[in-house]
């Protein structure tokens, strides 16, 4: 009796989850397979003319292979900013956790400010222009680093608190200088949280739409999120291509999710709770 009830409840929950959370993704896939006429109806239906690969090719070729350019740009942006973020924030987290100095309260305050304050858009553009970083990929990399520092520092600081100080002291007695103490002893020990940060921040930067929209305008600079504009215009929207594009830019997060499911969930919840 109890088991029947348990399975009925489970079945109900699964059914609900399927309808609410899976149907939208099925819709994306179905739309991506349709031809132009049927897709323009934007209803939930089985494709009559199956043309998945024709759509795929057309999306990739659209506007001088803009999607490929965007993929290259997004990859550079993601790899560049996440690498800097990991090094910079691990260093801050390390020193911040290990010692109390006159600047400690300030740093704590700025970490909180970084989490809460919305970036001032136009002044940032003004500043980027004056140091010649506006519309450049490396400027964008630094922006992503600046905006995501707080979250990464909090994660590192909390993790470093679990590493015993005796380890530092042993290394120091063996004559390790600060740089080798950090890079040779501490950083390797931070691997679990580093993997988490890499995964979570990669997805965040890859999915970022707002910041490239403001700070990286221009066709040759497009990142993958901005390619969604390609098939939407004031007058006509090619829905089959639009949804194929959505499908294509959803693939990288999906792959990361399949491999790093546990790290992502752990990182997002741990960082949030302890912060």
């Amino acid at each position, binding site marked *: 009796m109890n088991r029947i009830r348990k399975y009925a409840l*489970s079945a109900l929950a699964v059914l609900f989850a399927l309808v609410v959370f899976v149907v939208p993704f099925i819709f994306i896939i179905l739309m991506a397979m349709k031809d132009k006429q049927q897709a323009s109806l934007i209803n939930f239906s089985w494709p009559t003319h199956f043309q998945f690969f024709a759509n795929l090719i057309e999306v990739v070729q659209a506007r001088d292979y803009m999607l490929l350019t965007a993929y290259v740009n997004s990859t550079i942006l993601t790899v560049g900013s996440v690498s800097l973020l990991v090094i910079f924030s691990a260093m801050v987290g390390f020193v911040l956790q290990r010692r109390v100095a006159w600047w400690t309260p300030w740093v704590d305050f700025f970490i909180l400010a970084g989490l809460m304050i919305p970036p001032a858009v136009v002044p940032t553009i003004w500043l980027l222009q004056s140091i010649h970083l506006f519309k450049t990929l490396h400027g964008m990399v630094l922006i992503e680093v600046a905006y995501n520092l707080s979250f990464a520092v909090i994660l590192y600081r909390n993790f470093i608190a679990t590493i015993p100080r005796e380890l530092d002291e042993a290394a120091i007695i063996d004559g390790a200088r600060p740089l080798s103490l950090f890079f040779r002893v501490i950083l390797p020990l931070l691997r679990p949280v580093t993997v988490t940060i890499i995964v979570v921040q990669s997805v965040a930067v890859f999915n970022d739409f707002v910041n490239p929209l403001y700070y990286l305008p221009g066709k040759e600079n497009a990142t993958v999120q901005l390619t969604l504009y390609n098939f939407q215009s004031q007058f006509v929207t090619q829905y089959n291509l639009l949804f194929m594009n959505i499908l294509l830019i959803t693939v990288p997060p999906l792959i990361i999710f399949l491999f790093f499911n546990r790290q992502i969930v752990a990182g997002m919840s741990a960082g949030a709770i302890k912060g």
Partner: protein
Amino acid sequence: MTAITAQPTRTGNGSTGRRPRKGAHYPGWFIMPAAVVYAILFLVPTFASLYFSLTRWTLFSSEFIGLDNFYQFFREPFLSQALINTVIFAAVTSGLKVILGLLLGVLLTSRIAWRGMLRSIVFFPVLVSTVGVGITFTALMHPTHGAINEALALVGIKGPGWLTNRYLALYSVALVDVWRGVGLATVIYMAGIVSIPTDYYEASRIDGATRLQQFFHITLPLVRPAMYTVIILSFIGGLRLFDLIWAMTRGGPGFSSDVMASVVYKQYQAGYYGLSTAGNVVLFILIALLAVPLSWFLNRRVTTR
């Protein structure tokens, strides 16, 4: 500060001479790379915004006009509407995420079949492109052809124009934001629920407590830290949201679903840089007034150092 400190070979372990010793091994300049990037690209624009919000500004020249931009925000109906919408949107989305996330969190930590798969399904939308989600739901919410209204028609309900009705558009977008973000709330709750000692549940079961009593008297009080986190995260996120609204309604119909972040973008596009920056400052003040007192609850829990 670090260069002049004593030689690190003097490894006394008492509290005397604590600071120079630490300064040598944990040098302050370690924070410099991060601090420089953060200060230049985040702090300088933030402080500059306080000045530029008081000006009529073209990026090349700025004319000081006092608080005119701010007056405009409260005088122009479409701007003050955005202010109200922002608060409504943040309150609705964070409220729903707090409740639905808790229910899902309890469900997905209970002994339910296919638990792992369900967790993945609920969480995956968090990782998907927000603009992609917005476009997808705009299609699903189409008044005549959209799947939602077609499904409602099957059971004889005439669905509303989710995004074309100006009283409904903001709430429709809020629902989509909940769909997208509830997975994050759920995993935060799950982490909180898992950390509750099982002894409590066993003891209460021996005393004859029902599942409902266990929920209200054990789970709910002990999951409170996770709940505060969900409230603050989703509230701030709701106040700052831009991409979903931009992808779904662009603030329309009319200005009925405009929020502060979309106003900032629209004024920027229109070339009113001073007004746009004032919008940023208003949003900043809004967050400071609403979210900081809220987060005070959470920050009583001090991090270990």
